[in-house]
């Protein structure tokens, strides 16, 4: 037997990706002016929907007609998850499960079967194939482990004719009923780099702490930021840290041993505290800094009175896929590309978020958006992972 879907010629969308992804020496490889411009605009765009429910907000655009999916009864959802291997995903996963409970109570979803690929593309492809052949799924939710590699598998899921919702990272096909994601990496890069450039002088030095190379979401953040630093005459050196605070601390210590550092930029908030502590330990002036909405950072920020901002890769997006399926099975149209708001936490609203998240562990994300869900706050406080 041959999987029918694979016989189709690769979809047209895949073509540009192939050429675009060819190995290139330029550091600008991840930079895409058009996407950059779009995201730049989206930062200040107005979102449809209730700002009190940011996880349901979206930008006006193409909508998918879902009348064909409208049907009665509780549905079985199959979720192919990339992993829960970092605090951001863990927080989201907890939120998603609480959302699931809510929808089970309201009779929308009967059950959600989840396969966790433990960060492996190959496993996730198998997971999706397993769902297709054995899962009796009424709908698919896919959080792809990587963009290009999961494209064929997502296409196979689409071919079952069941609704497919993709979130977080995208894939190179628009066959999904809805693709849910916050504005994106370029917006993150612009927010952060503009903040730092505004606070720093020309010629100042920024240390960029990046987790690992080759992940598109992260690379786009840096691609935008690097470009802006260059434009503003800020000297930026970047390092890969593997999100290991020990590594971060050593890097900063070595940097401080070589000269002054005025700013710290991070492509994700893991280990932000270690970076700040490295300055404290060296007795150096605290830098201007961008981290993420992880509570550890917000707390340290408040404590030290640092000049900082916390960009956000909206964690509440983990609620949206299930809610999207609720709409889909109700026959309501959903955005084909569901762009969620992504607004950084600034000095002004930091206190507010710290207050709202009191008692949460350090690895929790301030904009997790689950305050109205049943298990709040215990489930997140105790970090109960199903």
């Amino acid at each position, binding site marked *: *037997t*041959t*999987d029918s879907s*694979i*016989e189709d*010629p*690769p979809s047209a969308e*895949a*073509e540009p*990706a*192939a050429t675009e*992804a*060819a*190995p*290139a*020496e330029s550091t600008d*490889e*991840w930079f895409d002016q058009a996407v950059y411009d779009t995201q730049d605009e989206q930062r200040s765009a107005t979102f449809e929907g209730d700002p009190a429910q940011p996880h349901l907000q979206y930008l006006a655009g193409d909508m998918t007609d879902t009348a064909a999916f409208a049907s009665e009864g509780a549905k079985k959802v199959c979720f192919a998850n990339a*992993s*829960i*291997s970092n605090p951001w995903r863990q927080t989201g996963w907890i939120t998603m499960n609480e959302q699931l409970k809510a929808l089970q109570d309201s009779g929308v979803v009967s059950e959600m*079967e*989840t*396969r*966790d690929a*433990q*960060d*492996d*593309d*190959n*496993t996730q*492809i*198998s*997971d999706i*194939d*397993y769902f297709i*052949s*054995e899962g009796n799924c009424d709908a698919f939710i896919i959080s792809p*482990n*990587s*963009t*290009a*590699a999961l*494209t*064929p598998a997502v296409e196979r899921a689409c071919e079952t004719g069941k609704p497919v919702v993709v979130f977080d990272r995208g894939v190179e096909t628009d066959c999904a009923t809805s693709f849910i994601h916050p504005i994106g990496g370029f917006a993150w890069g612009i927010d952060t780099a503009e903040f730092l450039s505004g606070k720093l002088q020309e010629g100042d030095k920024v240390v960029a702490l990046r987790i690992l*190379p*080759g*992940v*598109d979401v992260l*690379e786009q953040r840096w691609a935008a930021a690097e470009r802006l630093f260059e434009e503003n005459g800020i000297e930026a050196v970047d390092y*890969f840290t593997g999100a290991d605070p020990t590594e971060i601390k050593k890097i900063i210590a070595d940097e401080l041993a070589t000269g002054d550092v005025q700013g710290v930029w991070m492509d994700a908030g893991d280990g932000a505290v270690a970076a700040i502590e490295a300055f404290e330990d060296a007795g150096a002036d605290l830098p201007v800094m961008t981290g993420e909405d992880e509570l550890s950072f917000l707390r340290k920020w408040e404590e030290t009175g640092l000049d900082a901002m916390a960009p956000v890769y909206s964690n509440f997006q983990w609620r949206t896929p299930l809610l999207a399926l609720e709409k889909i099975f109700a026959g309501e149209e959903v955005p084909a590309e569901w762009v969620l708001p992504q607004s950084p936490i600034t000095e002004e609203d930091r206190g507010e978020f710290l207050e709202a998240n009191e008692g949460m562990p350090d690895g929790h994300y301030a904009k997790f958006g689950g305050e109205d869900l049943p298990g709040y706050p215990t489930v997140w406080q105790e970090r109960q*992972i*199903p």
Partner: protein
Amino acid sequence: MSPRKTPALTSTHIVYAVVLVTIAVGAVLVGSAGRNFFSTGNISDILTGTSVLGFIAIGQTLVILVGSLDLSVPYVISLSSLVAATVMANETGNILPGVLAALALAAAIGLANGLIVSGLKVHGFIATLGMGLIISGYLASNYKGSAGQTPLAFRLIGATGIGPVPVSTLIMLACAGAVLLLLNRSRLGSHMFAVGGDLTVARMSGIKTRVPVIAAHVLCSVLAGLAGLLLAARLGVGSPTIGSQGGYDLLSIAAVVLGGTLLAGGKGSLVGTLGGVLIFAMMDNIMSVLQINPFLKDVVRGVVIVAAVAVYARRRTLGRPARFSDTTGPAGPPDTRPERIQKDTGVTA
């Protein structure tokens, strides 16, 4: 001749006994989750799981037999997938060049590993750890994310099956067959056992001791290259992290040891290795069906690896057949005595 030839229970037998137990347990557990362990989709899921790890474990068996290790496989896999996908660039006509380029590069890496291990006398652990780091740096510097594209005809390999059996598994089994023949019926194979068993003896017997070591490393890398090709077929693109994502280095070593091969080299069985791979694949399948918490999956893996190896690791302390037993009277003088007694090094309490 021998009056009571005890049918020797080899470690391979035990591995397959464990396989059977796993199947039984799997059938029950999967059944209790309302699924069928023996359905086409499930079998295909398991077998797909065996193919990538299978390729690597076959190669790893060779390397371990000659007394080395290969920790660079994940990076060879990634590199091979990238080279194949970029050379193919979605052109059917480029499939062959892509495959050859990937395998040639893998072979070259294996050659380098082999030369470092056998020529410079660097322990395989360190040599391949270092080589893995070198390649990983190259990958990180030159490939930002996935690259290239494999053409449809090539992707069919990753998606086609005969009944529940994926083509990739068949290719893996064919490779296993070839390697089995190599090990048991060729000079090179005997020499691999010899070099892993006792380097001095091998040298004294006129074996060019570097050749089997280098050959094992080259074959291991080429098999890792094949795994990379298979992944490129399944993914449709090359990926710089696909090898390390799977954690194939340690997992393949575990599968080899689980299959009864001596980590120190010189003794082992490829058939056993395949059993080890199958056990891992079934375990993953069962745990996924049961939706076990991913963190606990690792706990189960860890415990199973140790427990399974413990089962027959204890067996090796068996001595020769008893002349006298505690219950029965004197027996006739035995005329066979397998194995020089290898007592526990630990002293029993």
